[in-house]
């Protein structure tokens, strides 16, 4: 090959630059600011429900004898204080006040800089609340995506509920939550194979869950063990193929999300377990901006 021949070729992008632009295009695919604003509303409205009603248990840990506090690695590294009644109340009610303030500011599209700081504050408080909740012998695995959401939402900057401007920063924030959701499913499958082995699918893990916390709907299935076994095959398959969700068309994503919500509701009806913060984050796959902007779009189209 001579230099002349190379020079005659039209300049083709190198593999590296093509990968870079594909990676950039995927992570920063712009979404309307209204979507990130609507998702913020959902997340900050769910938060008081979570810490006051669904999982208020961290508050009880403030009263537990310090001898029973077994701080997680993050709690030992930082090092975070041993929970007291004052600490848990400041965390619990501090988060609620910040979240409610954020809801008001988002609805009125005011004080975007203050919104960023409050959002960061909610994330820090919630992380510490998690350490308080999970440092007494049990860690829950239902809120990784929710933690990601709290961490990334403040980074998208000013976003109004009716602002349809496409934003790469909003796109990245929503993408982070989506990857958090899918990672939870996929890595849960990895954990099943790691801790339970491939035999997990034929084990009695779900039968055990039904015995411990089954409902009227699930209890009859104990006498038909094959149904529970089948559901284990189904769950592991579902978790392993979950990354598909990241790469299909938006319309297909919406169907899959509806299916996943149905799956989580069904699980709740059977064994009274629902990963609520995770379910909230499934909304990161939906065109949430349309809830408030359908009419605007239509009237704009008519106009």
């Amino acid at each position, binding site marked *: 090959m001579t230099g002349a021949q190379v020079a005659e070729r039209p300049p083709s992008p190198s593999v590296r630059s093509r990968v870079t632009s594909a990676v950039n295009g995927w992570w920063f695919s712009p979404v309307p600011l209204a979507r990130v604003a609507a998702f913020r509303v959902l997340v900050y409205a769910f938060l008081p429900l979570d810490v006051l009603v669904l999982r208020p248990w961290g508050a009880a840990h403030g009263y537990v004898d310090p001898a029973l506090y077994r701080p997680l690695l993050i709690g030992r590294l930082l090092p975070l204080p041993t929970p007291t009644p004052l600490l848990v109340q400041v965390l619990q009610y501090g988060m609620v006040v910040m979240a409610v303030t954020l809801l008001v500011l988002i609805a009125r599209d005011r004080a975007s800089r203050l919104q960023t700081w409050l959002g960061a504050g909610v994330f820090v408080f919630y992380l510490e609340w998690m350490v308080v909740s999970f440092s007494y012998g049990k860690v829950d695995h239902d809120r990784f995506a929710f933690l990601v959401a709290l961490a990334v939402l403040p980074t998208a900057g000013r976003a109004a509920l009716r602002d349809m401007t496409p934003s790469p920063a909003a796109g990245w924030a929503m993408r982070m939550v989506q990857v958090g959701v899918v990672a939870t499913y996929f890595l*849960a499958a990895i*954990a099943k194979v790691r801790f339970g082995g491939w035999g997990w699918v034929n084990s*009695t893990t779900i039968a055990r869950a039904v015995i411990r916390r089954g409902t009227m709907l699930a209890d009859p299935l104990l006498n038909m063990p094959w149904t529970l076994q089948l559901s284990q095959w189904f769950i592991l398959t579902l978790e392993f193929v979950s990354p598909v969700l990241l790469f299909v068309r938006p319309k297909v994503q919406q169907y899959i999300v509806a299916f996943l919500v149905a799956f989580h509701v069904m699980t709740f009806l059977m064994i009274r377990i629902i990963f609520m913060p995770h379910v909230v984050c499934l909304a990161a796959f939906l065109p949430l901006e349309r809830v408030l902007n359908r009419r605007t779009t239509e009237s704009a189209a008519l106009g």
Partner: protein
Amino acid sequence: MGATGRRGRLVVAAVVFGLLVVGAFVGSDDHFPLGPFRMYATSSQATGQVAVVALQMKTEGSDWTLVRPSPESVGMNVAEFEGQLPRFEDDPDLLGAVAASRASLHPDEPAWTDLRIIRQSTLVVDKVPTGEVVETVLAEWSADAALDEGGS
């Protein structure tokens, strides 16, 4: 968003999800929030026991009474007692800390003078529970004994 903002965000994504994947393969619950997602990840045998941990307590002059551990009753739930079970078995006096937690949560109620942690096992044969429940005492603590030891 400038080039720096993009690069920073890509680095954050790579670090967070990279560590999460590492955590899934070699981490433990201690590494929260980057540990493995091990909800219902263990396998259980078709025939064997399904065990649940519970408490039994006495107040001054009462008989043993069953208590299902909950945040409201003692500040910790069943799973948390199961998570710390080896500690209770090694050092039954740790049950004194549970009685103390109870006292700080319910200061107006009679203090617990004796406390046991028990295992209730349901026998399962070929994936179907037999209905037979066996109770085993795993650790026991008495305020009086603790006082005596302290006094001697």
